[in-house]
């Protein structure tokens, strides 16, 4: 009981000391992230799972199962990577403290098994993430932060309506009561979480928010913060068949839509953000193993976001002609190969596990999305490495750490069977083929950016919400 609570209260409490004594940021975050990593690896290794009820019958329930453990490990890995990235740079101690606070908030989100408690910790995390987004205090960042918190607050309004509907029918805020509540309540709660998790159409805010933030913030947002909306959806999917069906459907839609958007991008960071939209879809398409997929994606994507900060330009066409420093290139290559699902990387084990769990109707769509992922990331893989001095923005330590996580997971989790290796290499090769067959020319087309306007995103979110309700009420 004590270790679970200290995962949440430790970072939050210690961050207050870090504000009072800024010198503490040299040691405290490393110890906290190391503690989270150690505890979650131990949980995964021993396959334990336990529930913790605070106070009596109406108290808040915390659930520490393997899904939560994988996401805690993602959080620890990404926080460690970001810490190593921030170390040599001149970020103020306040920034380090905010990352520590975000770490505590995220841990709370992943452990919570109570609908109202989840709302509180999600809002806490959103506000801390917002402060990180606007940290440089330039106009662009302030507008980006305002959009981020506005849209997510609209999502949480829907979530709260659903929560009180669950309470009225069942007399409890416990998450497992959702299967007994009215389908409209489930639809409202899911709609709110889809906005938070950047899934399908309600996630249209994600490309702009993640690409305009600074590199370490983008890494945190894409690596872990979107998963606060995704893990509850995975838990709902385990509750009943109709919820499972809706989660899978949203996953497939998001996987295809993210790829469709990513093919048209010519900005590196926007391309990565659109790829996050599609990878979140992969997580939801196979709910039983989604948490493991979230781990593999979170580590690889944050490594990519930290690596691209070492590029001389964000424009892919310009990078094509100028080339990329070879260390930055290899960091990008290894992380991109993991997302493509090449053997020996964590992404491979996750993708094999996901493809075992998907239903037959999902298979053609997900195979297409996997080929599309490889085609999109080929744009980064086939950049030309050049021998130049190491650029300032690049942090070698964080790239080594995150790539190490991916390789260790891939080697430890396997599988070592020939057909799956051939299939994975075949999918990646097909993606490269599609890339060279001319899909890369799509990036010359400029998509209208009307769909990214504030009102349009909120309007489309309402439409998706209505569709979810109709889908849920239908027997």
């Amino acid at each position, binding site marked *: 009981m004590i270790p679970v609570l200290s995962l949440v209260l430790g970072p939050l409490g210690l961050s207050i000391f870090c504000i009072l004594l800024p010198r503490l940021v040299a040691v405290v975050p490393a110890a906290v992230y190391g503690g989270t990593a150690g505890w979650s690896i131990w949980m995964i290794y021993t396959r334990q799972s336990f529930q913790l009820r605070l106070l009596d019958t109406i108290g808040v329930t915390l659930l520490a199962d393997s899904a939560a453990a994988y996401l805690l490990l993602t959080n620890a890995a990404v926080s460690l990577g970001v810490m190593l990235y921030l170390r040599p740079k001149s970020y103020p101690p306040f920034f380090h403290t905010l990352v520590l606070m975000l770490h505590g908030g995220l841990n709370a989100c992943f452990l919570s098994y109570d609908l109202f408690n989840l709302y509180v910790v999600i809002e806490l995390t959103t506000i801390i993430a917002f402060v990180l987004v606007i940290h440089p205090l330039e106009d662009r960042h302030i507008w980006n932060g305002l959009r981020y918190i506005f849209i997510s607050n609209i999502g949480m309004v829907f979530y709260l309506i659903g929560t*009180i509907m669950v309470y009225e029918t069942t007399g409890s805020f416990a998450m497992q009561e959702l299967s007994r509540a009215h389908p409209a309540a489930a639809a409202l709660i899911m709609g709110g979480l889809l906005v938070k998790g950047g899934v399908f159409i309600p996630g249209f805010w994600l490309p702009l928010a993640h690409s305009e933030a600074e590199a370490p913030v983008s890494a945190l947002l894409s690596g872990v913060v979107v998963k606060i909306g995704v893990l509850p959806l995975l838990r709902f999917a385990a509750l009943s068949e109709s919820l499972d069906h809706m989660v899978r459907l949203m996953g497939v839609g998001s996987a295809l839509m993210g790829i469709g958007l990513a093919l048209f991008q010519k900005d590196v960071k926007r391309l990565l953000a659109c790829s996050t939209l599609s990878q979140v879809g992969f997580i939801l398409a196979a709910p039983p193993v989604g948490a493991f997929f979230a781990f593999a994606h979170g580590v690889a994507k944050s490594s990519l976001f930290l690596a691209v900060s070492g590029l001389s330009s964000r424009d892919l066409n310009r990078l094509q002609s100028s080339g990329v420093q070879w260390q930055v290139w290899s960091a990008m290559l290894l992380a991109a190969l993991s997302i493509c699902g090449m053997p020996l990387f964590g992404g491979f084990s996750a993708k094999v596990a996901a493809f075992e769990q998907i239903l037959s109707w999902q298979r053609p769509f997900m195979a297409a999305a996997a080929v599309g992922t490889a085609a999109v990331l080929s744009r980064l893989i086939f950049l030309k490495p050049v021998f130049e001095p190491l650029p300032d923005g690049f942090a070698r330590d964080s790239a080594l750490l995150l790539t190490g996580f991916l390789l260790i997971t891939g080697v430890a989790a396997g599988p070592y069977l020939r057909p799956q290796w051939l299939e994975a290499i075949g999918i990646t090769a097909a993606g490269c083929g599609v890339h060279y067959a001319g899909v890369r020319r799509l990036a010359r087309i400029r998509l209208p950016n009307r769909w990214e306007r504030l009102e349009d995103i909120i309007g489309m979110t309402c439409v998706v919400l209505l569709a979810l309700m109709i889908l849920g009420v239908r027997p």
Partner: protein
Amino acid sequence: MIKTLILATILIGLLGVLLKPNLLLKILAMDVMSTGIISLFVLAASRTGARTPTVIPNPPDTYADPLPQAVVLTAIVIGFSVLAVLLVCATTIAKRFPTLNAKEIESHFDR
């Protein structure tokens, strides 16, 4: 009846968010939605009775459900802080570009 009115409040807030071009009014419309949610929680609490849930021997009538009332306090505080943060951002942006029209501000940032 009351529930319908509360849901109408939330819907009016949503329409305000969608239709008002002014950023400040959008933020205030979002607060109208939050107010609706808070009333919904209070209404849910009053289904068992309206009296304050305090412990006294032989209560004269049935008391309100204390749980929604307790949790909605947190929602009020969160809603308030988010509103404050949004208003600060909106005023900062309005100082840099002398407009509050969301579409105009957005077109400044289009590349």
